[in-house]
């Protein structure tokens, strides 16, 4: 199913594509350009509809609503680039939050809670990766099972109850600002980690190997890439970042219910795919995903300002996902048609 499914296929060296360039249409086949345009449209429309949109404090504060998802989108980018998928991330967040809640009830301090949250995430990610790599099971099958298992444990332990007692300093992580400024701590943490992931993926051999695995895992293995080890590592990373997201979310809302972050995996995958990462693996970059994170975040903020209910926002995002996948292909075809016509006219 390689051919038409690839959202970026028009960018590559497609076989029968007419040579030549057509400034605007060429740019429009570039994913990040399309996203950036949609992003600007969202901002322009929102700003003209609501006077509250372009307020610095509002904009800073709205990032609280999507920074945890953004943090998980970073490792999921690597997972999908490898041709895998991880739909257990929200389940991992629930499990992490559960253990933090239990530890907090037993009197653990903030640092201990953070450690427990991260360690739980890492362990859960390792379990996923181990099952996937050791038994060569497709990642979607394993993570469908583990998402039920992880969240199921939270439901089994908590039922309809909740942990609501967290130490006071713990709240800073998810609610605090940097010094006296209007910049949330979560936002800064995300920016730092986004840079780290960007460098890891685009400036190291590790990153190149990720693309190699995603394009052809067998060829990568024969070229000496430790495919199994790398996939295991990336699932651990996905678990660890889910643990971190869980620390921040638990700190922000100050309570743990078993349905915490329920359904987030879908929104996170949507974000990554909308960011131009091919679900078949091997193509895409961090920049697109970052634009996509803020695009969806601000789109929701804008719709929220004009009182659009959350479920209806999901219709918009669902259509956006589908349209965004169709768009580069259609623009690419349009571009080829223009070029052909020009060549015919010029008698080339």
């Amino acid at each position: 199913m390689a051919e038409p499914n690839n959202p970026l296929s028009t960018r590559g060296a497609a076989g029968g594509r007419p040579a030549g360039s057509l400034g605007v249409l060429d740019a429009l086949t570039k994913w990040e350009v399309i996203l950036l345009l949609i992003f600007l449209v969202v901002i322009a429309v929102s700003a003209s509809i609501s006077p509250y949109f372009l307020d610095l404090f509002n904009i800073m504060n709205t990032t609280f609503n999507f920074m945890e998802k953004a943090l998980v989108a970073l490792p999921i980018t690597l997972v999908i680039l490898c041709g895998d998928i991880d739909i257990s991330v929200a389940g991992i967040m629930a499990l992490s939050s559960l253990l933090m809640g239990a530890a907090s009830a037993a009197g653990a301090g903030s640092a201990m809670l953070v450690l427990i949250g991260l360690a739980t995430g890492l362990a859960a990610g390792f379990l996923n990766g181990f099952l996937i790599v050791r038994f060569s099971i497709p990642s979607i099958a394993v993570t469908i099972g583990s998402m039920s298992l992880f969240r199921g444990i939270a439901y089994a332990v908590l039922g309809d109850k909740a942990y609501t007692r967290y130490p006071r300093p713990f709240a800073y992580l998810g609610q605090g600002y940097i010094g006296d400024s209007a910049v949330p701590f979560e936002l800064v943490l995300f920016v730092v980690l986004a840079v780290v992931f960007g460098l890891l993926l685009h400036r190291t051999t590790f990153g190149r190997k990720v693309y190699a695995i995603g394009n052809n895992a067998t060829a990568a293995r024969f070229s000496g890439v430790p495919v199994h080890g790398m996939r295991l590592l990336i699932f651990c990373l996905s678990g660890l970042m889910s643990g971190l997201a869980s620390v921040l979310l638990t700190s922000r809302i100050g309570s743990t219910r078993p349905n915490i972050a329920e359904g987030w995996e879908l929104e996170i995958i949507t974000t990554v795919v909308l960011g131009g990462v091919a679900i078949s693996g091997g193509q895409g970059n961090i920049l697109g995903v970052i634009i996509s994170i803020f695009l969806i975040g601000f789109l929701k903020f804008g719709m929220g300002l004009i009182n659009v209910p959350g479920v209806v926002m999901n219709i918009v995002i669902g259509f956006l996902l589908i349209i965004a996948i169709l768009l580069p292909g259609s623009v690419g075809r349009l571009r080829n048609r223009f070029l052909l016509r020009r060549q015919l006219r010029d008698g080339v």
Partner: protein
Amino acid sequence: MRRLLKRREFTLLLVILVLVAAISLRYPAFLSASNLYDILNDTAILFMVAIAQMMVIVTGGIDLSVSSGIALVGMSVGMLNQYFPGIPIALIMLISMVMGLVLGAFNGVLVSQAGIPPIIATLGTLSIYRGFVFVLSGGEWVSAHEMSDSFRNLPHGTPLGITNLLLSAVLVTVLAALFLNLTRIGREIYGVGGNRVAARYVGINLKRVDFLVFTISGVIVGLSGLLWVARYASAQNETAAGFHLPTIAACVIGGVSILGGTGTVLGVMLGALFLGIVNNALPVINLSPFYQMAIQGFVILAAIVVNTLVDQRNQRLMLRKRLL
């Protein structure tokens, strides 16, 4: 006999029998005919939708939108019944299936014509269909007293000796088994899932098969939507939320390969039955229903690991036999 023993369905059947025996040893009431009938009745919708899901998975796809499809069709026919109680129930059944067909065909077009990977296309429609439930209802519920008697009684009626709910499940199961095993296009579904490139070379129309499985899935989802809402006598915005997971779980437990190409109706039935028994047994053995999800997750993981190990061993055996 030895071939029978090797079949995955046989192992699963044994596991189910052991499970039932273990529970009924301590709680004899579990084995009563009425309880077993209840289990079948409670699992009927899962039977139907899991089989729909299986047809998609066998082609190498996946349909995440079934849960939202059930909710959207359910809410639509629920409101239709609320505002026009005069519409005969047979017509409502037809409407539910046509609505489901349209929703399924939309998925089918996205996958077969637009070339969007099934997991992404149905991830999109999962959100879209669920959103339209809210748009349609404005957040209101359709409750039992707003439904006509014929609507509410549809799943419980027993014109043919068993409840209509169970009858639908039996019909879907039998038709699916016949369709998949005895018709040309049914075999093509397996061919496409086994090897798409080879399937194209032998002249199978891939686009048609992709479109067809999603459309069939849609029709079954439509009927299930009506039965769901009528059975629980309420249509809500959260109806069937997350229900795509147990349908996939039933397939995985039943030995359907998530990569496509293999899977039987019998296996999926046993997989669904297993989940149905576990859900029914929890209150019997005094475990809170909150344990349901964790057990389901554990069973999925155990099933895929066991299935993989068995597959790998069989492949080794086959290889050794060929060497000798």
